């Protein structure tokens, strides 16, 4: 295949992946790595490097929408970012040492988890227990807009959330994904933050986490401009268009279809990782 044709094909796939990722809330990076390795035969290190950059771009480009809504809690985000950046650096390190097949298998299982992951677990707001010590020391409580007024909420289990965020960071650095699902899991389930606060704070954190591992990928030579270019230029506008279409489209069917595609990719990643071909 010539570079020109390859660039156009990867660009089209990235555009589609970015759009569907935003529409279904599953993220674009999670599709790009398996697609590049399985369909285009790209080495997994290059694929992860390119995907990381597109994850950073999407996070920064969509930040403005989240900030306008006034949901994200920068304090919670910043405390947890110590965990995610440390994890991301460790993940990028690990990725340099273990073999590509193992990375593919881990990727497959994380993909299965993202598909299985569903929205909010419970109503986190109606929690009246006293605030724990760490939350008070770190001044973590906040409020978020509900019908014109601000509804206060408390933050629970900071150590538990911290550990989960470290894991999210490792996965992000190892696999080149935003690992938004694990981040939301940490904040929604472990720390009992309102779902909307979890998802928007997660957006803020995803870019910082990915940047922490991107530096290591860059200095290791895992970021190839010829490959990253069509991926970034595709995923970014795709995600922006997808986010704009989101309120207009009913997404359950789309989500189910996209989940099926991801399921097929996950199984292939695991199979090829185990029996060779990555």
């Amino acid at each position: 295949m010539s570079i020109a044709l390859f660039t156009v094909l990867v660009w089209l796939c990235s555009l589609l992946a970015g759009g569907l990722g935003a529409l279904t809330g599953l993220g674009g990076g999670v599709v790009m790595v398996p697609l590049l390795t399985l369909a285009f035969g790209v080495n997994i290190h290059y694929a992860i490097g390119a995907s990381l950059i597109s994850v950073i771009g999407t996070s920064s480009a969509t930040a403005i929408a989240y900030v306008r809504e006034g949901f994200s809690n920068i304090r919670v985000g910043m405390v947890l970012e110590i965990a995610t950046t440390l994890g991301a650096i460790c993940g990028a390190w690990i990725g340099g040492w273990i073999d590509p097949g193992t990375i593919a298998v881990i990727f497959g299982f994380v993909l299965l988890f993202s598909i299985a992951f569903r929205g909010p677990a419970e109503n986190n707001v109606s929690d009246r227990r006293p605030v724990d010590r760490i939350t008070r020391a770190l001044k973590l409580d906040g409020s978020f807009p509900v019908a014109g007024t601000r509804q206060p909420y408390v933050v629970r289990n900071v150590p538990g959330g911290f550990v989960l965020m470290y894991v999210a960071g490792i996965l992000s650095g190892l696999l080149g994904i935003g690992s938004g699902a694990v981040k939301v899991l940490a904040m929604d389930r472990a720390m009992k933050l309102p779902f909307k606060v979890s998802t928007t704070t997660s957006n803020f954190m995803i870019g910082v986490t990915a940047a922490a591992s991107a530096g290591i990928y860059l200095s290791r030579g895992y970021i190839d401009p010829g490959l990253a270019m069509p991926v970034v230029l595709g995923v970014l506008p795709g995600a922006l268009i997808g986010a704009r279409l989101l309120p207009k489209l009913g997404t359950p069917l789309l989500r189910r279809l996209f989940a099926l595609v991801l399921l097929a990719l996950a199984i292939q990643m695991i199979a090829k990782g185990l029996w060779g071909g990555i």
Partner: protein
Amino acid sequence: MEQGSWGQPGTGNKGRNLDLLISHLLRAGVMVATLLTVAGACLYLLHHGGQPVTYDIFRGEPPDLKGLSAVWHDALSLSGRGLIQLGLLVLIATPVVRVLASAMAFMAAGDRLYLLITMAVLVLLLASLFGWLG
């Protein structure tokens, strides 16, 4: 700004305006990065578009695409791949700017605990970007 209030959602318009300013800054960064990448892409495809693709074997990038100063030098000489790499670097830098702006805001609010937390994140980011951890 009320002392130590920035960073908590819903604590006044000032913090909110700062957040908006930061996100405008981020968007400008993304735009500059996109322009650089598109310009580099045109040059790259013009010169190398007809060559075959070899991404199946991992070789690592040549030294001139790995370091910050080397990428800068390449981009100035208007190499397509160098320009793209510079665009990607600008993109990678956008979250760093976000953290830096947060640090300054916590400093302005006199919030020493959060200034410390934010600086820790910033140091980790810069250490990774300058290749001290590779």
